[in-house]
């Protein structure tokens, strides 16, 4: 498994797409710094809100693109066949993709996080702000792996572009369940509440720990909330990986 993670990470780091994303995300953090300096009163808020949002969008893009294309790419090039001829089960390859994605996004988040920590001002209690920003970065990383797990699962049954569209929709849904619920209430469509119940079972509830903002960096979160977000993400990663392994178990690799 470690060999697979190592080789995939090495290979993906060489992708031009990824290098461009790395550069753009760095540029985005720099732009958020510049935009922040234009404001007199809300400098820190603008910098951190934009910077953290950029971090989440970047890791999501990396997760969505790579997870939906990795399997297809390996099948096309017959790398999958050479590796699968070894005494390993198919799910190991999928777990290898997720492991590599974790490492890759970890590098990306660490790089962007260090840039933010180095250049942005943390007014007030530096210690608690640092702790909070690390928790925020960990949840962003885990959310990206959940999205990656969904992308890998979709790529086991659909072509890369379809998988990508489904994965983007899944990410949007994971943030929008509370909004949909609100609209249903306002439109007096409570008979459709079963949709919300269904979505809550099928989609992770990212909206319950959407912490990528200055407010949360300053005010923090409870221990219970941190544990909930960690176990929620871990649960979804294992569930999606399990489903992906079931789907690929008897899939014909033509």
């Amino acid at each position, binding site marked *: 498994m470690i060999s697979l993670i190592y080789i995939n990470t090495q290979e993906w780091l060489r992708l031009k797409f990824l290098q461009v994303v790395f550069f753009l995300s760095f540029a985005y953090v720099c732009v958020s710094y510049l935009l922040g300096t234009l404001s007199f009163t809300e400098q820190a808020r603008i910098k951190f809100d934009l910077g953290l949002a950029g971090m989440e969008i970047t890791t999501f893009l990396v997760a969505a693109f790579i997870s939906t294309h990795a399997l297809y790419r390996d099948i096309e090039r017959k790398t999958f066949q050479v590796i699968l*001829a070894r005494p390993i089960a198919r799910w190991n390859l999928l777990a290898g993709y997720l492991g590599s994605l974790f490492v890759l996004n970890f590098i990306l988040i660490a790089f962007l996080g260090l840039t933010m920590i180095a250049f942005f001002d943390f007014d007030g209690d530096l210690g608690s702000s640092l702790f909070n920003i690390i928790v925020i970065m960990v949840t962003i990383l885990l959310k990206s792996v959940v999205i990656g797990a969904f992308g890998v699962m979709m790529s086991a049954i659909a072509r890369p572009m379809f998988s990508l569209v489904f994965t983007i929709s899944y990410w949007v849904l994971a943030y929008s369940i509370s909004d949909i619920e609100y609209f249903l209430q306002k439109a007096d469509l409570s008979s459709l509440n079963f949709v919300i119940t269904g979505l809550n079972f099928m989609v992770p509830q990212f909206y319950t720990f959407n912490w990528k903002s200055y407010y949360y960096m300053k005010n923090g979160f409870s221990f219970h909330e941190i544990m909930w977000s960690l176990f929620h993400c871990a649960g979804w990663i294992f569930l999606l990986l399990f489903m992906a392994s079931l789907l690929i178990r008897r899939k014909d690799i033509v």
Partner: protein
Amino acid sequence: MSVICKATNVSKSFRPDFYKKPVQVLKSVNFQINQGRFVGFIGPNGAGKTTTIKCMMQFIFPDHGEISFFDQTDFIEAKRKIGFLPERPYFQEFLSGVEFLKLHWNLCGLKAADFQNRAEEVLEQVKLTHAKHKKLRDYSKGMLQRIGIAQALLARPEFLILDEPMSGLDPDGRILIKDILKSFKEKKLTVLMSSHLLEDVEELCEDLIILHKGETLFYGAITEFKQNFSSLEAAYKAFKGQIEEVNHNA
């Protein structure tokens, strides 16, 4: 002589698209590969050779019939004794020859301490010792094919499956690969080699499997197949003529 691999009534169909009718690629594939035999797997394009090999390696699953290895039910365990080289694969070009072998050694779950000696052995066998630290991107086509054979040999397999090992190679590359394959024959390693090149099959193989339109038309010793003919090519031509006549009359 123990049986290494046995295929019984294997059939497989594919649906090109969900709204299209399935196409029957394999109808009835039957053969048996005995230990220590070098087996040639021949047939025209589209006969189902690669599909059969994919079924053997469980990349695809037969609709009917079964393929067994070493009389084992656990295929992952059986894979420990099988070396495989697909037709024109892609290898991670940023790795050197040794790093590539190391990756496969780790995937086999073998002891790290034994790697160095074994890597030297297989690199020597495929005549790539001089290029072991070169990146794969700098390898020629023939060298890539040889490093592919090296990875297949790495875990000391009892059975080697090679899908078109000489396709797309220049004459020098073919001679080198053929020499390597001859050394397998001398060592009595069990090999299944699919090929379009009848003269290579005649030179290297002891047994033959002929596939035509997804059906096994012959499996047995080459000497038995050739019988009254001077060469495998002549025997194959006569055999094909008979098949076409039968099909025409039917």
